[in-house]
């Protein structure tokens, strides 16, 4: 049985021009296994961040359900922690206090020493030893997101939701943090749902990649299996024979969907078959 199940989820917004509703995406269905890493790629406006927020419980869905471990979830909870694109660190708290806020919330019965030791462990895990008492303003983007990752991993959530976590970080630092993320995830093995624009990042990190068609009325068009064995690293992954096949396939998909913008312009089969996404496997 799937660990995290996104079951026929649709999202409609009231039309800003008045009258009727706009469908952002419809009938999104995917079953994610425990410990699986799934990435979502799609053009802006396909609703992938909205989908992530729905899984997190921060936004409501119009139709469908999210099931975690067989139980329907509603509203946010400690079992589904988000790593935000904008970091979302409290600027009035130090690095230590930011992570401690989360750890205290997740483990209310722990005493002071145990909490402090746990926070310290995760600070060291992301290589921020010595920056405990700095405030987020004093940190670079990369360091801020390391705090974001430490905060997320520290509460050991069942599901980790990564919302374009490295989009605001310079390309060189991004690569380093991606590998740090792999390291942390290797030990924790949380189930991960990630939203990204970066094809290389998606291939490096995920087991499966969901490709979404354009909104309004977006849906999962294809699911690409990343058939490259782990452990992976940025240096070796590009040597794998499947790497460029997968990469080219995804880029072609994105270019095809970028040409005209609207979903109607893209030549896609209509009817019942279009409901089930194509599974692509090299």
């Amino acid at each position: 049985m799937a660990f995290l199940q996104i079951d026929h989820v649709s999202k409609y917004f009231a039309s800003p021009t008045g009258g009727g509703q706009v469908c952002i995406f419809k009938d999104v269905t995917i079953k994610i296994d425990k410990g699986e890493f799934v990435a979502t790629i799609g053009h802006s406006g396909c609703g992938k961040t909205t989908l992530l927020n729905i899984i997190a419980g921060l936004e409501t869905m119009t139709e469908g359900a999210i099931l975690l471990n067989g139980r329907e979830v509603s509203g946010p909870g400690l079992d589904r922690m988000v790593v935000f694109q904008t970091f979302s660190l409290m600027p009035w708290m130090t690095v230590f206090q930011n992570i401690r806020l989360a750890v205290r919330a997740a483990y209310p019965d722990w005493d002071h020493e145990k909490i402090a030791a746990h926070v310290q462990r995760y600070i060291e895990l992301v290589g921020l030893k010595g920056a405990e008492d700095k405030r987020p303003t004093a940190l670079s983007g990369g360091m801020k997101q390391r705090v974001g990752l430490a905060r997320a991993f520290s509460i050991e959530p069942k599901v980790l939701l990564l919302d374009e976590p490295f989009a605001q970080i310079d390309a060189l630092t991004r690569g380093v943090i991606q590998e740090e993320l792999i390291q942390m995830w290797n030990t924790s093995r949380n189930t991960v749902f990630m939203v990204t624009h970066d094809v290389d990042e998606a291939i490096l990190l995920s087991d499966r990649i969901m490709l979404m068609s354009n909104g309004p009325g977006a849906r999962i068009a294809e699911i690409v299996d990343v058939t490259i064995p782990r452990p992976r690293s940025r240096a070796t992954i590009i040597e794998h024979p499947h790497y460029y096949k997968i990469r080219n396939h995804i880029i072609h998909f994105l270019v095809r969907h970028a040409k005209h913008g609207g979903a109607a312009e893209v030549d896609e089969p209509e009817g019942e078959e279009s409901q089930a996404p194509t599974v692509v496997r090299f």
Partner: protein
Amino acid sequence: MGKTRKDALLISIALLVVFLTGWHLFTLTAGFDPKGKTEEELQLMEFNGDIMRTPEGKYVWNPEKEKVKGVPGPLAVLAKTREELGEAFIKKGTNDHGIAYLVMYTVTRFAAGFLAASVVAVVVGVILGLNKVLFQAVNPFIQILKPISPLAWMPLLLYTVKDPKWTAVLVVFMASVWPTLATTAFGVNSLRKDYLHVAAILQLSWFKRLFKVILPGAAPTIVNGLRISFGSALVAVVPAEMLLGELGVGYLSWIEWNNLDIAGVIFAILVVGTVGVILDSGFNKLAGLVTYQE
């Protein structure tokens, strides 16, 4: 000290010297010259109190009458300051308390009104900031009440509470409640949704959400509101004391005017300024503790 600051300090001192010298020269009055006046005229002037005879038998202007002729010079104000500070801690009668007491009365009155107003304004502001519908419902009333001069409330307050002591405090309250209320509501309402999302995911209790996230997050905006309230309360406390006859530095200014002691009025103005500066710097220290950089 940097060169700019040094230069600025020099210019400040120069300005002060120029101002004091100018003030001194413009308020200088010529000594009495009895030349050309008959003995009869002089006797009449002495009888009127315009001039008086020194122990050496020379005629000079009567210093008591000098006090109300023109504006007193800096030396007269300095003498008055010395005299007042000398008896700062002496109570001469029911309405003649030393300047230290007057400052204390004003500061107490100010603090009571301002603190009470701040607590009420922050609590109500947070409630309104968290509830958009309620905010939109209450906002028109705030907009109407905000521009009313706090002194306009005074007769009504005096009539209602029937006690000038509390009326003065309430005037300060009315002066300081609106700016803090409006900015707190705005600050809480425009708090970045991200912070609330984190609080929601972490399942923080209502109490923790308020004290760990909402209040510290909105603190810079709230402090700005408090700063505006602070200034407006400081402006209101002086005329409130004047009109109500409550002992304090504002009262001092008015009573010295009634005594026609213009040097005393200037002294009172200087005291009001000094008290304002001291309270303001204390406020800034507190404000620095709760603000953060994005």
